């Protein structure tokens, strides 16, 4: 069983990982200690691998700092659900292989028990099971490869890109 971490709307990257805690200022090894360090200090201490984040719209707005989604991936966040993600965050998460779903699940309470099955495409909770939308081809390919870099290394091109002979 995993749990839901509920967040509000417009969660920005300064909340997820304040600039002062960037690897540039500290060190990459410490990154896992810092997600939501000021906004929600208990998060990094108690989050368990497979837990999910459920937020209102515009999750990840603000800076381009990839260490924000990277820190969430490091602590094992299984997926993030928000009706709308900020563009750069979405792209960064996609590149890192951190699953995002454009879904409004804000009826789920903070701390609710859930069971995320990414392969089966479901999220089970106390009152039922949600079928997760099938991501577009592009995303599926990147996710299956484990991120854009493994994808690129394997194929020598971006998904959908025509290889010019």
């Amino acid at each position, binding site marked *: 069983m995993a749990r839901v971490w509920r967040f509000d709307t417009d969660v920005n990257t*300064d909340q997820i990982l304040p600039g002062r805690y960037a690897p*540039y200022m500290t060190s990459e090894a410490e990154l896992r200690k810092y997600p939501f360090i000021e906004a929600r200090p208990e998060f990094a201490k108690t989050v368990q691998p497979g837990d999910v984040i459920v937020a209102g719209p515009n999750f990840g707005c603000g800076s381009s700092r990839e260490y924000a989604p990277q820190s969430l991936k490091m602590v094992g966040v299984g997926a993030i659900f928000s009706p709308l993600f900020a563009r750069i965050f979405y792209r960064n998460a996609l590149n890192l292989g951190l699953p995002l779903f454009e879904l409004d699940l804000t009826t789920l309470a903070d701390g609710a028990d859930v069971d995320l099955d990414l392969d089966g495409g479901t999220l089970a909770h106390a009152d039922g099971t949600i079928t997760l939308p099938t991501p577009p081809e592009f995303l599926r390919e990147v996710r299956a490869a484990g991120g*854009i870099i493994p994808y690129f290394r394997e194929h020598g*091109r971006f998904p959908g890109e025509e290889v010019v002979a």
Partner: protein
Amino acid sequence: MNGRTLSEIILSRAAGRSVASGEVVTLEPDVVMVHDSIAPSVIKILREQLHVDRLPHPDRVAVAVDHVAPAANLATAEAQAKLRTWVAEQGIETFFDTGRGIAHQVLIEERLARPGRIVIGSDSHSTAYGAVAAFGTGMGATDIALALASGRTWMRVPETIRIDVVGQFRAGARPKDLALAVVRRLRADGGTYTALEYHGLADLSVGARTTLSTMALEAGAKAGLIDPAGLPSAYPVPEWLQTDPTAGEPSYRERFTIDLDAMRPQIAVPDTVDNVVDLSELGRVPVDVVYLGTCTNGRHEDMAAAAAMLEGRRIARGVRMMVVPASREALQAAIADGTLATLVAAGATIGPPGCGACIGRHLGVLAAGETCLFTGNRNFRGRMGSPDARIYLGSPEVAAATALTGYVCDPNEVAIDAVMAGEGV
């Protein structure tokens, strides 16, 4: 035939085929910008994950040390030393080290960003390049590393929100107020995945255009393009970029008009950029710090506007005023015409060109309980230091009026008070 948006024109040319919004294209960016804050991650990904020792196009790379310039501690000093070695190894000539200024400002000054180009940067405010009608957008470390390694990147052609600006700036309203009014209208996520496209601003300086293009990001936009009409001749507009007046209306996702005649000074209230009110609706908010700088409002014209109001006066007792020029050019211009001397005489503290305390790392970080009037682009909780500091966003003129009175203040109010020449005013 339907007309095309600026994004469609620029991205079609780069993709080598006619593309419309919604399509995904792969293209070769003209410039890939990397700054000191993200460079260590980018270099690490290049080495450890992509195993690339030599970049294929060092001539298309611009590197800036701006986020922590000069280095604030041992960790940043060592990271910057490694960055310098890497830049030399790669033969990157467009390297803007400590003191040259904020990458966005510098790339525009150096004309690395110019009409019709595609500039991607390791920084969200890379929308800045839209000021000179370059398609500028921000990406994370992995995307930037891949672009450096392959010379290519992918992107989705954005839909466009067209903003027609009519009327004249008056009654203390400035380009920053327009930028805030747009975020107020669209909200923080109203422009997500879109390009904002401004028309009707042919009279605006490149600097004022940059205020608008940097802040497009605060509505979630991928790009913030200003119609190139009226750009100085240093930024020639290629013929292919000129929109065809005989073509029909492009398909916009949304289109609206903003009337400057009706605009008054705007203020973004903590803790979100879209929490904007007319300054006249704000009660009396005392401040501890006034901070003039950043890629949004740290140019010579911004400093000069503040200096014109501070000339012969002193900032209020108990207020600290930081002025951090966006670039060395801006600083030099402010030295040459006496702007800097005026600001210093009024009691301001001058920082080295760069990002300064914009991200709360050095050079004027805020303490718990402090309030700052900031000419930058973000007022998120914790942005400039303590999560218990409060940040209000306003124009350089509001900054000067606030410095004089000690509370968030309408520039019109100070102009009247000045006649009475009160203490601290």
